[in-house]
């Protein structure tokens, strides 16, 4: 289940990297801020699920779009390191805002309506919560929809062309600036969906979650090979499985250290990732 969240987030950031040539290090923080917006709207609007979900999508999309003008000059100058540092700083600002604005940074719990009503599905000795099923099904549905958009729509094809060769896309008269802005919008929408699914999966949120998620998403991308969609899907699921195994077999909170150690080891022996870089 965690793996499917990693997949969705890694695919979003990979998409932005391919189209806009920009690595968004603040993706996790945007997701967590959108989770807080959902929680806030649910609390204020009497647990109206529709408004809660809309708040998540709107917050994540607006924040991601804000990054477009902020990074434009650096992206045009191909200043990758500066872009990276800027998004790290942007993410930290979001984390601090959340820490100061919501219960002094203490975790907040989502109401049952965001947890699939607390329903469980029993298959013999195995119990799966309805929320977990919704999360996995939601991820698969969104990824299929995203694939359809990229391969079957005019805008999607234009964005793929920009990702494959910017100069040729420009020569063919494709609206590169519009495609770039749209890629930020779509990444924002995907971040909003990720926030909804993560809220369903965890049932709570807290400010430090954003930094950890951002980092794991980028680790998945490196693990897979930068810009490799298929690799991101496989490695996102793999990281989720590895983390579950570590949690099951090791005493203490070693999950992050061991999982990150494995990712680091892979980077050292295969700098282009398991599936090869496409950037």
């Amino acid at each position, binding site marked *: 289940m965690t793996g499917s969240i990693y997949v969705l987030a890694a695919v979003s950031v990979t998409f932005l990297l391919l189209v806009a040539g920009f*690595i968004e290090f603040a993706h996790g923080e945007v997701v967590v801020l959108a989770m807080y917006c959902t929680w806030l709207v649910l609390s204020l609007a009497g647990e109206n699920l529709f408004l809660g979900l809309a708040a998540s999508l709107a917050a994540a999309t607006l924040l991601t779009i804000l990054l477009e003008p*902020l990074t434009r*000059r*650096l992206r045009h*100058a191909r*200043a*990758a*390191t*500066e872009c*990276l*540092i*800027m998004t*790290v*700083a*942007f993410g*930290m*600002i979001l984390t*601090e*805002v959340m820490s*100061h604005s919501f219960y002094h940074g203490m975790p907040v719990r989502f109401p049952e309506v965001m947890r699939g009503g607390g329903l469980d599905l029993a298959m013999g000795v195995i119990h799966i919560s309805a929320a977990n099923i919704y999360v996995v099904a939601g991820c698969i549905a969104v990824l299929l929809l995203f694939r359809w958009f990229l391969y079957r729509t005019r805008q999607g094809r234009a964005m793929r062309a920009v990702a494959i060769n910017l100069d040729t896309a420009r020569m063919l008269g494709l609206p590169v600036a519009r495609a770039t802005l749209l890629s930020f919008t779509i990444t924002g929408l995907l971040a909003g969906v990720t926030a909804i699914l993560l809220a369903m999966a965890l049932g709570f949120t807290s400010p430090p979650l954003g*930094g*950890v998620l951002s*980092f794991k998403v*980028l*680790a998945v991308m*490196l693990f897979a090979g*930068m810009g490799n969609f298929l690799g991101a899907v496989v490695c996102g699921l793999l990281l989720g499985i590895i983390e579950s195994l570590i949690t099951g077999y090791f005493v*203490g*909170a*070693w999950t*992050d*250290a061991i999982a*990150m*150690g494995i*990712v*680091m080891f892979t*980077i*050292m022996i295969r*700098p282009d990732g398991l599936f090869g870089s496409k950037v």
Partner: protein
Amino acid sequence: MAMSAYLQGYLVMVGVLILLGWSLYLPLRAGYMNNSPIFFMAISGYFAAYTTGELHWAIPVAFAAAVAVCFLLALLLSLTLVNVSGFAMAVATIALVFIIQTIIRNLEFLGAAAGFSIYSQMPYLLTVTYVLVVLNLVFLNRLANSRFGRALEAMEYDPEVCDALGINRRSLSIFVQAYSGGLGAVAGVLYTFNVGTLFPEMFGFNFVLYGFTMVLVGGRSTLWGVLIFGPVLWSIPEFAPPWIGQWRNIMFGGIIVLLLVLRPKGVITKETLRRLAPRSGATPALGDQPGE
């Protein structure tokens, strides 16, 4: 007249941040965002705290051993990361920060999440800190104005030309990373004796934020920016009303974002130095444009 403990602590912290800033500046000059100095700060800090507190080593011995161990580790790390891209380096070294925090949080003999206190005080801490700052300033300044410094800068802007000129990028990269790891270790020991109690959370993103704010505001093409703007930036929330101090991280983050939008090269560039001191001999940085 004896200096107050608060003022001494503040001045040592400024020195520590200058050293940390330089340890981040050096790899950045070669085009890498390398966060490993914070990892080495944690290792050297806990190493010095444990060996002086539990094993009763003399402070100078513990200091030297902590720096030596970290320098060797940094050398090993640089050998393994020498072929990776700039982005992979950034992520891999942030991974190290996560890993070391998790490890310390799980080790009871280092106090785990409850923290580890040291009761011995380092004599002449302030003097030692500023002697080390001056020594590093002299060394890094000579380095920056040497053939080595120019090669380092060229590495970022055109690696292929570097290869054509016969510059050994591999050795250069290994040296830079090992030195910046060692510098991070020095900052870590000084920080430990300044604060007295260590917690794993201390060696996290806060230091990444403070360090890069100093480097980017000051200007990443010269080491003077860190020296001048490090103390200024650290002093704003320190001496401002308490409510401003609470927003320190947002302020630093905001400064980075604004600066990268408005003036990505920072306040002090090589061009600025040439204008201020025409005969200083500062060679133009490859990215510096007149008028910036």
